[in-house]
């Protein structure tokens, strides 16, 4: 055995023992510096090769190189082991109480009235309706007279109108009692064909369990040369089945009276009452159940067309109107009309809708 082999074996044994003993990365690094660092034992051995006799150098170089390779590999191997140990120790020490309540969710809500209007607009838009609107403070003419409700008409009594102060000329503005004045505004300013819906605020001086001084209606108007009551039925049946999401929703139209339509009808939808309360549609095949009045409608009265300078011999069409709160109450099981306007946060959060729940996007 040469002197180099003796040195190598001694250093090798010593270093491998130190590497095996190293129990953390710092100690291991010390071993690396002490062996392979600038002044390390192996580095020194490698340097010493130059001082040997030329015939010895080759053999010594081979011996020390293999030592260096062996130690380098042992260091790397040990480093990997220690890192793995360190990581599992770290993971073992790092925990979170996953039962902690989450950070507060900032989500707000959309009011059921807005949501319901959105749903209705989406359905009617598919039938070619566009949204029209008008002022809440209206002339007596637009709210009543033009709609064929002259001053002493008994229908006026049913409207419980809010009045603004009398003007110098004796006229009085009113808070619109329905959305129908927008029919007048539209027909006066546009020519047929007309196809509008008018969602909006309406006002009547009445307050009890089933009346609110402010509520919302949606009005519809179709004027062209050939729309008749068959279309009226088709349009409103499609709407109700779509809105309430009941494909076989039973409906009926029965004669009624509104000054601004002739013939006039009210539309009922089928419902059933059982232990669970009111349900839109009929249960199973029994067909039994009640009717719920849902909207008023009819062919636009020729007098109304005349009042808007539209020729009733050439043009005709239908109009309808329904209460938005009532539709929302029926669809979403909201029990009390008055709560819509009380702004109780608990109510608004419970009955409200997510900003992302967009009827247009999800197909109403």
């Amino acid at each position, binding site marked *: 055995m040469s002197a180099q082999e003796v040195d190598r074996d001694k250093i090798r044994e010593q270093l491998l023992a130190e590497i095996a003993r190293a129990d953390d990365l710092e100690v291991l690094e010390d071993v690396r510096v002490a062996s392979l660092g600038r002044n390390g034992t192996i580095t020194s051995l490698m340097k010493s090769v130059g001082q040997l006799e030329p015939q010895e150098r080759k053999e010594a170089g081979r011996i020390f190189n293999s030592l260096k390779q062996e130690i380098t590999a042992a260091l790397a191997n040990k480093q990997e082991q220690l890192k793995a140990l360190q990581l599992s120790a770290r993971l073992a020490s790092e925990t979170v109480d996953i039962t902690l309540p989450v950070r507060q969710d900032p989500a707000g809500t959309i009011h059921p009235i807005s949501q319901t209007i959105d749903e209705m607009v989406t359905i009617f*838009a598919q039938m070619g*309706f566009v949204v029209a609107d008008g002022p809440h*403070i209206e002339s007596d003419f637009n709210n009543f007279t033009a709609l064929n409700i002259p001053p002493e008409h008994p229908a006026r009594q049913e409207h419980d109108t809010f009045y603004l102060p009398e003007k110098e000329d004796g006229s009085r*503005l009113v808070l619109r009692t329905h959305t129908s004045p927008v029919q007048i505004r539209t027909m006066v300013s546009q020519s047929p064909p007309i196809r509008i819906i008018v969602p909006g*605020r309406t006002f009547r*001086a009445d*307050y009890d369990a089933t009346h609110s001084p402010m509520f919302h209606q949606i009005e519809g108007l*179709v004027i062209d040369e050939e729309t008749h009551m068959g279309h009226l039925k088709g349009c409103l049946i*499609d709407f109700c089945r779509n809105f309430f999401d009941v494909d076989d929703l039973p409906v009926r139209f029965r004669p*009624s009276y509104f000054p601004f339509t002739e013939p006039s009808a009210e539309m009922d939808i089928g419902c059933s009452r059982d232990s669970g309360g009111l349900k839109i549609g009929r249960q199973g095949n029994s067909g039994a159940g009640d009717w719920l009045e849902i909207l008023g409608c009819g062919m636009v009265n020729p007098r109304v067309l005349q009042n808007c300078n539209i020729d009733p011999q050439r043009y005709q069409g239908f109009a309808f109107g329904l209460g938005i709160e009532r539709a929302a109450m029926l669809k979403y099981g909201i029990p009390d009309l008055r709560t819509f306007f009380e702004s109780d946060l608990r109510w608004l959060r419970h009955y409200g809708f997510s900003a992302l729940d967009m009827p247009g996007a999800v197909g109403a």
Partner: protein
Amino acid sequence: MKFTLSWLKYHLATDASLDEITDKLTMLGLEVEAVDDRAATFAPFLIGQVISACQHPNADRLRLCTVDTGGAQYQVVCGAPNAREGIKGVFAPIGSFIPGTEVTLKPSKIRGEESHGMLCSEKEMGISDEHGGIIELPGDAPIGEKWAAWAGLDDPVIEIALTPNRGDCASVRGIARDLAAAGLGELSPLPKSSELGSFESPIKWKHDFPPGAETACPFVVGRYFRNVENTQSPAFIQDRLKAIGLRPISALVDITNWLTFDLGRPLHVFDADKISGDLVMRFARSGERIKGLDDQEYELDENMVVISDDRGPQGIGGVMGGDNAGCDDSTNNVFLEVALFDPIKIAEAGRKLGIMSDARYRFERGIDPHSVEWGCDIATKMILKFCGGEASELVSSGQKPETQAIKILRPTRIKDLTGVDIPLDQSQKILFDLGFNPKMQDGDINVTVPTWRHDIDGEADLVEEVLRIYGFDKIPEVKLEQGQALCAAPRNDLQRRAEKVRRSLSARGLVEAVTYSFIDSRHAAYFGGISKNLTLSNPISSDLDVMRPSIIPSLLVAAARNQARGIPSPLFFEVGPQYDEDTPEGQRLVAAGLRSQNAVSRHWSGPMRDVDAIDAKADALSALLASGAPVNGIQLTRDAPTWYHPGRSGALRLGKNVLGFFGELHPSVLEFMQAAGPIVCFEVFLDLVPVKRSKSSAKPMLEIPSLQPVYRDFAFIVDQQVDAEEVLKAVRNSDANLIDNVNLFDVYEGTGVEIGKKSLGIMVTLQPKQTSLTDQEISAASESIVTAVEKKTGGTIR
């Protein structure tokens, strides 16, 4: 309008069942509101006789009765004082549902004695409040028979909701006519006769209206009856009046009520001995008073028609008779009034006086002018039949209006308007059955409008008449196709803007509220006040009396109410109207919102924080962004309105328009509205946001730089009064090409910073475009930033 089935059958010969009749009524436009099928309600109750009654062994006040119902005998424990041997009463067997107490009867043991049924009081039967004892039936009541049928109480009561146009159906006969036309039976003919009278009436009718105003009462007739006996009316009248909720009073009064409901012909009877002189139809004089039959005093005005004698008003025409000349048991001589009135005058008088009488209800809807004559005939006949006596000749004043309206119905119009082909002869038959007397002329149907149908105006009304009877349900439905000419977007810019703002604000955590358009004028005073033009003349309450000048007070009231209910940190928004003027343009579409108390409430994850003006600023900017406003061009000024805290609020301006306000609410507003602060809010005027000019949906080309950005931090010391925005702007503008972003990450006052100064920590992002930045270039940029800040704001690097 209420009536009973047997009453209907008095005018309509029909085999139709109750269900068929009520279904048909609804489908004719005479909507059935309620059916009280008393035959079904009272079906279990039998006439029974108490064959023995003895003392209950264990209770002083109870008796053990044996009730015989013909086929069987039952032991009944009864507490009524009049339960005694021999009497006949109403027996409820086990299983009966007792209408008055809403209890289903079960076998029971009362103090150890079995009870197998019940003897009922009137209250228990739901027919009166009488509960002093059990019902006692007369001796001839047939044992074992159904009690209701025997007592005439099995007549179903039907109530319909009348639309205001169908005054003719405020009578049982009018309803029968519609049903007959719809094929549900035959309309029975009315007996025709005219009574001549045997003497001259000592009371005459006179008219005294100003010229031109005679239409207030165009025509009135009357008749004097002597030696009548005002007894009780016959049972068939009493039963039916009771069934519809009227109290039988005396034959004379019951006859007038009967005719009001039976034929829709209100009329009035005066005690002739209490009338002084003749009767005059005239307008009341200002200040005249009358005590009505309802015992109330009414003050009359010059627009109300009265029936007056020498001493003054004895009745309010078409509305209510006077108490003074009313008939009672001792009435001997009677004067009958049968008049026509102007519906509008009646409606006005009734409304002003607050009287909703059965007469007003019919007169204001319009009655058949011919009813003056036939009404007087039928009333005469009934008075003579039930009360005896002698009738005078007719007296009258005025003239019956001759209204014979001929209208034309083109058969094609029916198809045009309804989309359904109704055979011509069927249309004619329907019109004939309704009394329109149709005649064909040149292919058109000419009709004479019946005098009782004041609602028939034009061709469309005739189409409705035909269709109503033919059946709305027979119209085939047709899909409404999306028209070709009608493919515009369903919402216009402003409407879409409102929707986007709603979704955007609710995504930011605000909860949408919908509040009344009217608020308390005392609140409005704090929000810019309100003009008289926007004050309601008839508010439902004093705290909802003006149109709101701002949405904030509505939301503030809502916040205070929630706080009072113990709900912490309420936060709302509303997109709705505010009212600056009473014109259409004066109604503004505003998005407003409010946050209160804690922005971040107590939570394990971090410190709590109160809301501040900058929260409201963020909401306002988000609303503006969603509404399409060019947010980068918006400028801030410190001139928010008076309801904001002057030092913690601002206005958002675009050019010369103020697009909105934000900030903390003024402490005195909070105090007045009793809301707990801090509360911050914003208002954004959606109608002022400019519409985007470009119609293109394309976005500008994105250029992503290939070189890495360089980040440098600066801390500047500036005077406290210097706006942060001034410093940020100076930084931004120092080298607009190179500086990509400026981020204010720290604002600090306190230890280490001179009093009156603040330190602003700013991170600047430098974005090289062509080549990487050298150290010199970076230093040069830093220097120009420091120089710019110093020059513009006097700030120095820390």
